């Protein structure tokens, strides 16, 4: 558990400290220097420069900031929405439960990547989203977070629903109800604390999945748009130059790999810590 946490922490701190690194290197991630294109590692550019002479290290840190922000924001949002739906389904039961869970099954049973590509390629102007927002650089970030939440809420919803079904029959919940506690109070104080552990595990694992999804969409040109850059969009630019300067593609891919494997190992370690018995048989 210590190593993945350390790796994730180091990447996050470095990405946040990017402005300081830029200051130390007397450069910034978008500074173009066409004379020094494809430069090798040097004191001024520890990892060399890319096809426009931009500092590779700073670009990687900047890309990491974008990728991590999307991963964490979308994972937390998906967990929150999924928790709401799961609580509603599990506590209310009946038709609400049946409809919500059929819907979740339906989402799980779809070929997600092709459908996400359609959604990612939609013309937001035709959806009636105002032009100033549809054209702003932040829109590509919002779009990916929305897409990731759209497919990601089901995990949390099923987890929370299952736990709610079990917990609401327990004596302390019935006692609370007989004392006149409101539904919201029961859900918040009695049921939710019982699902926190699996929810944290699932959210940690989903950060990795979402970073992978973001990188695929950005790589296909449907994710993060310039001037913003993520690891996936950096790889997309580097693909054309793969023969002449393979390092431009190897660095961002290695960062994605490192981050995602750290998330997965951390999730696995958390699972073992929360429930040592469960970890032996868990599928992932």
């Amino acid at each position: 558990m210590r190593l993945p946490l350390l790796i994730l922490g180091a990447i996050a701190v470095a990405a946040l400290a990017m402005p300081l690194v830029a200051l130390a290197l007397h450069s910034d991630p978008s500074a173009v220097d066409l004379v020094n294109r494809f430069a090798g590692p040097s004191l001024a550019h520890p990892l060399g420069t890319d096809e426009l002479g931009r500092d590779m290290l700073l670009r990687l840190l900047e890309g990491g900031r974008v990728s991590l922000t999307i991963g964490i924001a979308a994972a937390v949002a998906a967990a929150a929405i999924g928790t709401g739906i799961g609580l509603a389904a599990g506590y209310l039961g009946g038709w609400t439960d049946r409809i919500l869970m059929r819907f979740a099954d339906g989402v799980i049973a779809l070929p997600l990547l092709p459908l996400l590509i359609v959604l990612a390629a939609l013309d937001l102007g035709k959806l009636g989203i105002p032009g100033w927002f549809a054209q702003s650089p932040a829109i590509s970030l919002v779009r990916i977070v929305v897409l990731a939440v759209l497919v990601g809420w089901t995990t949390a919803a099923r987890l929370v629903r299952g736990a709610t079904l079990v917990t609401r029959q327990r004596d302390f919940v019935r006692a609370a109800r007989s004392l006149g506690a409101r539904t919201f109070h029961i859900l918040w104080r009695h049921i939710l604390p019982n699902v926190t552990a699996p929810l944290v595990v699932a959210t940690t694992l989903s950060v990795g999945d979402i970073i992978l999804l973001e990188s695929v969409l950005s790589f296909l040109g449907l994710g993060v748009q310039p001037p913003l850059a993520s690891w996936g969009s950096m790889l997309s630019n580097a693909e054309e130059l793969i023969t002449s300067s393979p390092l431009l593609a190897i660095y961002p891919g290695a960062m994605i790999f490192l981050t995602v494997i750290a998330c997965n190992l951390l999730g696995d370690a958390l699972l073992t810590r929360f429930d040592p018995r469960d970890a032996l048989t868990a599928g992932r």
Partner: protein
Amino acid sequence: MIRFTAIRLVEIAAMLVLMSFVIYALIGLMPGDPIDLMMASDPHLTTADVARLKALYGVGQPLLTRYFAWAHAALAGDLGYSRLFAAPVVATLLPRLGNSLVLLGSSFVLAFLLALGLGIAAARHPRSRLDAAINLGAFAGVSVPTFWLALILILVFAQGLRWLPAGGITDAGDGNIADRLRHLVLPVATLTIASIGGYTRYVRAAMRDALGQDHIRTARAKGASEARVVWHHALRGALVPIATILALSFGTLVSGALVTEEMFAYPGMGKLIFDAVMGNDYNLALAALLLATAVTMAANLAADLAYAWLDPRVVLR
């Protein structure tokens, strides 16, 4: 079981109708207009032609009217004409579906057999060094971005060592079996590496579960050989969850290799869907997406049926 299957089939049909409408509506929201594209690419088109084309394609009609016109034709077996390939949609889809099945089928079999060996080896020695190494390798497999893996393989084996072609399905010319196989090696390797990690973790978990059961202890107490215990008694119990996962992942066979196919310029369904969506080829994108949806849902049903068939304790409702 028959009742369950019938209900699920009805559900799948309803879901497909719903999805066909959703996808139809979404595709109308994509940037660009196919007739504007035709006009841009053909200077001989006059304004009158454009007006005629727009009337023909129903541009300006309400969404529902257009959808019903499409659905009516589709139910009669006419899925329309692909704009990108200038051929009927069905004739474009089928060969690519075949290509995808070849690519995915071979990597599926390869990944599953390797995962079975690795997963059982890990489960037989829990918490050993071997177990830890296999587990770490499996995590690496699920964490590697497929497109990056493909790039690295191309870089090493196609650019560096020049052993294998970097893309396509055959060299220009005849394309005999040996040539086709050479073109399959790198995409199959990419997909296998990308999927083996997940399978290994499932096999490992299922086998660990199975090896902990009472009847295994009984078999050992009766003096059954370790090989018999593992391969006969434990694997049987482990096969139920494994079969479910296999049936589920079969659903991705149609569309799951989108990234790999795109990287290796392999003419399969995934690449077809991507190209059709990106190229405003509405008819083709719609049919391909629906086909992928139908296969994925059918695989889900197959997974449930396999589960009930293999484990008599499961009652389907």
